């Protein structure tokens, strides 16, 4: 039961990202390129993030990776619970940095092409505060 509760709780922060993520990604692209850009950005993550996660986690735990028949030895200590946590933590740090690096375009008018809003971009668009 405890496991359920803890996992349910752990999904709260996940969903706090998952909600705003959609617009954050979509508003990064100007109208005429938005469908392509947002789709590519979002779906590429399934290649680098969610998709391989179970494989990576299993490999880290077992200390070796089996990739299409070939075996690679993991350079990290195996059988340690912290190795998986560290993996997630590294992912979070990467996600954090990417979010900070992504320009905040929420102040732009998403119904008009961004090329025409350059002056506004210069004065009105903030970068997210750190920390």
């Amino acid at each position: 039961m405890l496991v359920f509760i803890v996992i349910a709780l752990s999904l709260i922060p996940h969903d706090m990202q998952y909600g705003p993520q959609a617009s954050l990604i979509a508003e990064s692209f100007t109208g005429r390129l938005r469908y392509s850009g947002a789709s590519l950005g979002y779906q590429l993550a399934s290649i680098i993030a969610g998709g391989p996660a179970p494989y990576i986690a299993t490999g880290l735990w077992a200390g070796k990776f089996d990739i299409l028949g070939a075996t690679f030895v993991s350079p990290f200590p195996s059988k340690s619970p912290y190795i998986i946590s560290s993996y997630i933590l590294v992912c979070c740090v990467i996600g954090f940095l990417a979010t900070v690096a992504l320009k905040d375009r929420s102040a732009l008018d998403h119904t008009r092409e961004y090329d025409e809003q350059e002056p506004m971009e210069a004065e009105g668009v903030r970068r997210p505060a750190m920390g």
Partner: protein
Amino acid sequence: MASTAGSSVLDAMPPDERRRNLLKAVVASTVGTSIEWYDYFLFGTAGALVFAKLFFPKSDQLAGTLNVYVIFFAGFLARTIGAWLFGTYGDRIGRKATLIATLLFMGVATFLIGVMPTYATLGLWAAVILVVLRLCQGIGVGGEWGGSVLLAMEWGSRKRKGWLGSWPQFGVPIGLVLANAIVALTVTLAGEKAFLEWAWRIPFLLSIVLVGVGLYIRLGIVETPVFQALLKEQRLERAPVREVVRRNWREIVLSALLRMPEPGAVLPVHRLRLHLRRRTRIQQTIPDLGCKRRGPCLLLHDPALRLPVRRDRSENHVHAGHRGHGGVGLRLLRPVPGGSACAGIHRHCALLDPA
């Protein structure tokens, strides 16, 4: 300033017509996305119970290898192909037409899975066709997401676009709960033996009804003001994918990277599922308890969490998300001892396709 504007279309519209279109757009995007996720997750939940036996028998080594590829390529490659393919059309022929296409594409693939002859009748070809249909599902879901977010967001004002854009995200838990509920119901009503023989087809066939409803709703929407304006001013891009990769490769890479914390949600659920299997000794009977739990959790949290995010999306994203994940991750994730995790992992990948 030159008015290109989607906003001119929005402004020219009487307020209640605008509101009505916005409502229709949000409903159409959320309902449609839920249906697509139902189809997509169904393969994992129902499929994990029966596909290994019916399509990939252990006696055929080639079929066994295919099984692994299903999991691998459907989740990764197909969704990116879908993004590329439907992204192109979404920026060229419009959000509405593309969203109807993705829904149809997904619905037909799912329905065909439901009428597939098995390995017993068709041999290896049955496995091959199943893989192809799964790829089609991946392509459909890959094209869907962008469109439904855009549909909801582009009908809204600047202030509300964040809130509106998060509605389609709600489709993930709805689809997940629906898929699990219907599979569980079918197993209960038909019995385990019948489920393995023929009843597993029911949830897949049922999808065509849902897709019909989704199509009906989507046919009634009006193209987004942004695309209407692009069309009117003939500013459409001929090769939007090439152009966006050239101009905005930075944004694409960062968007993908900002979703990196996803394993923080994927892995605990895996862990939970392994834990359940061990504790309850339920091997196959009850489909996917882990997903069942995750679904309602997401369902509960999602609307509540949408409230504080109307403004400052990126800040919220940074603060709430990543910090929370890191902390929880460190405390929680003790993997299941060795062997069992390894053995189960292929099947689990199939079960839990990340959103």
